């Protein structure tokens, strides 16, 4: 099995350990990894601002950079959702797009659906608050949504539950948005921060020690608020936990 790793720009620059954790998880599963250095960004910031003309060249780059990979895996639900659901608008009638879309996976869904991981060999004896990032949830359907009438499931939680000693926080609002939303975080700063603070309060009262998610962007926003408020809550990307990094 071969995987082309997609490490989104902000993870590359700001959270390299999340990328390395992803590499280590895949390596342990004996997956052949390729990291194409030409890659930078999926184009989401531009597309989400309505600047499709600026985003389209990045989508074309993406297609080219991952053309030869069997799978494309990324530790970011939001960027994968961009490829799977929004490249159609940027690359209309592109013959290579369907193949790219069907081989591109968010890390956790790749682990549950393709690799079908059965166990991890380490423990994580902490109470974890799982933030259900919206794009993973409502674009990629990596879990059931509180709005819909469907059987309850969560691919991320299903993976984390394989770690010994892990406990989960039960939240009052199980899947409300954290308020990051890309440029929304600065355009609508007041609403964005209030949304984030409300999420954090929910996790605090549920007893969360480690706040995690499959999207580092949500966590960047939440961590920014937590650090400003000097709260005692650790923030880790789910890849770091699955790779066995300690909660220090």
């Amino acid at each position: 099995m071969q995987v082309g790793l997609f490490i989104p720009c902000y993870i590359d620059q700001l959270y390299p350990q999340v990328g390395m954790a992803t590499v280590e998880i895949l390596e342990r599963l004996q997956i052949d990894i390729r990291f194409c250095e030409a890659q930078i960004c999926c184009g989401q910031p531009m597309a989400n601002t309505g600047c499709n003309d600026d985003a389209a060249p990045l989508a074309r780059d993406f297609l080219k950079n991952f053309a030869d990979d069997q799978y494309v895996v990324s530790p970011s639900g939001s960027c994968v959702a961009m490829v799977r659901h929004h490249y159609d608008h940027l690359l209309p009638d592109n013959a290579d797009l369907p193949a790219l879309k069907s081989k591109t996976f968010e890390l956790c869904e790749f682990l549950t659906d393709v690799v079908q991981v059965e166990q991890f060999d380490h423990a994580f004896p902490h109470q974890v608050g799982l933030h259900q990032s919206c794009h993973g949830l409502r674009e990629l359907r990596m879990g059931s949504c509180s709005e819909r009438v469907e059987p309850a499931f969560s691919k991320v939680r299903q993976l984390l539950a394989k770690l010994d000693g892990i406990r989960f926080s039960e939240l009052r609002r199980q899947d409300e948005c954290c308020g990051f939303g890309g440029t929304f975080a600065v355009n609508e700063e007041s609403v964005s921060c209030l949304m984030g603070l409300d999420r954090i309060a929910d996790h605090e009262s549920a007893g969360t020690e480690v706040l995690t998610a499959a999207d580092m962007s949500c966590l960047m926003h939440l961590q920014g608020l937590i650090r400003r408020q000097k709260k005692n809550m650790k923030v880790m990307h789910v890849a770091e936990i699955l790779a066995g990094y300690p909660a220090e």
Partner: protein
Amino acid sequence: MHAIEHAKEAKEFIESRGRATWHDSALWFVRAKRDKAAQSLPEWEILRETASQIKQHTASRLADYLEKFEANATRLGATVHWAATADEHNRIVMEILQKHGAKKVVKSKSMLTEECHLNPDLEAAGIEVVDTDLGERIVQLRQEPPSHIVLPAIHIKKAEVGEVFHQHLGTDAGADDPDYLTEAARQHLREKFCAADAGITGVNFAVAETGEFVVCTNEGNADLGTSLPPVHIACMGIEKLIPRQKDLGVFLRLLARSATGQPITTYSSHFRGPRSGCELHIILVDNGRSSILGREDFRRSLNCIRCGACMNTCPVYRRSGGHSYGTTVPGPIGSILAPARDPGQHHSLPFACSLCGSCTDVCPVKIDLHHQLLTMRGEVKKAGHLPALKRWGMWAMGIVLRRNWLYGFLGSVGRKLLPLIPRPLIYNRMNMWGRQRELPQTPAKSFRQLYRERYGRK
């Protein structure tokens, strides 16, 4: 008119008025009731899909169904009018009222008449128009627009209702008990109902095959308001049509459950022609709807049955209040409808959204709301209404993110410099991220550097 800046209005609601958390909880409570009601039906998702198909089918032959509805309603004794614009709608209403010498009108909740700004036109002609839905009466007495399409006074605290009732209805000063205030409104509005010369209602659903239409309320105000006076004027957008009577079963099951978590509204009245000796007028209004029908990306917004569920679930709406949108219909659906009509005036609304997608999943007629909001951002940009900073910022970002050397250079310089800059210079007034949040701590090396160190270039 100045363009609406949602972010500014939202900030005001949150920071100056301190209402956001209270408002958020009130609406989340409604959302939770809706969840419970939806969960009570195993077929919920099938119902949503069915409703969506019925609406899309109707849209695909809307002109035929409108003609069929007109013929059947006329056969039942109603008079059917057509209004291409809001002005024409108001003119028709006025003409009917003047023909009957009507001076006093009772009106039940109708977002369409809000959209057409009917009340000011009637009042200018010396006609008293009383909104009879309790929430609408409260906002009318306060001389402000509704802030929600189903819960018009959701932004108002009971003490404030007490104040306005004390002033206008003579309730005891300081009284704020909802039972007491509702009873006072009941007495006050009974007088209005009994004195009315005509009743105006909206329409929830109109049935092409029978010519009937349905109006849903919990209070009974549409019903009381049309069963006493000799004239009933029903105002409906052309998208309210459904083909068959049995389709009502689908929509009435979804509407109240989605709106308030009730299994059905208290009153679902089916009007099939005028009362004996009375007149029934139905006004079919376009006012921009046919143009939305022609835009494939936004057509499904015409599925909307005005349940308000997208507002109740929207984390932005809940924390910014309906008035921050500056439109008749606020929230996610309003942020599509308003800029579809006037992108210059409403360009900030599609950006008043974190793209969380909750609205899409809650919508009983499966409007792909958050995708339409995203598409609308592109339309705003194409129409030249994107603020320059955003526009050029994204252009520059596009340049950097396509040039590996530049991206790598800026990244490494940034990571080295940032820790050296004194904090006050970073956390300045221009840094919206840093107003309430810390910036991420900058690592010494990027992922690609670490990867290269470990594996070399491969």
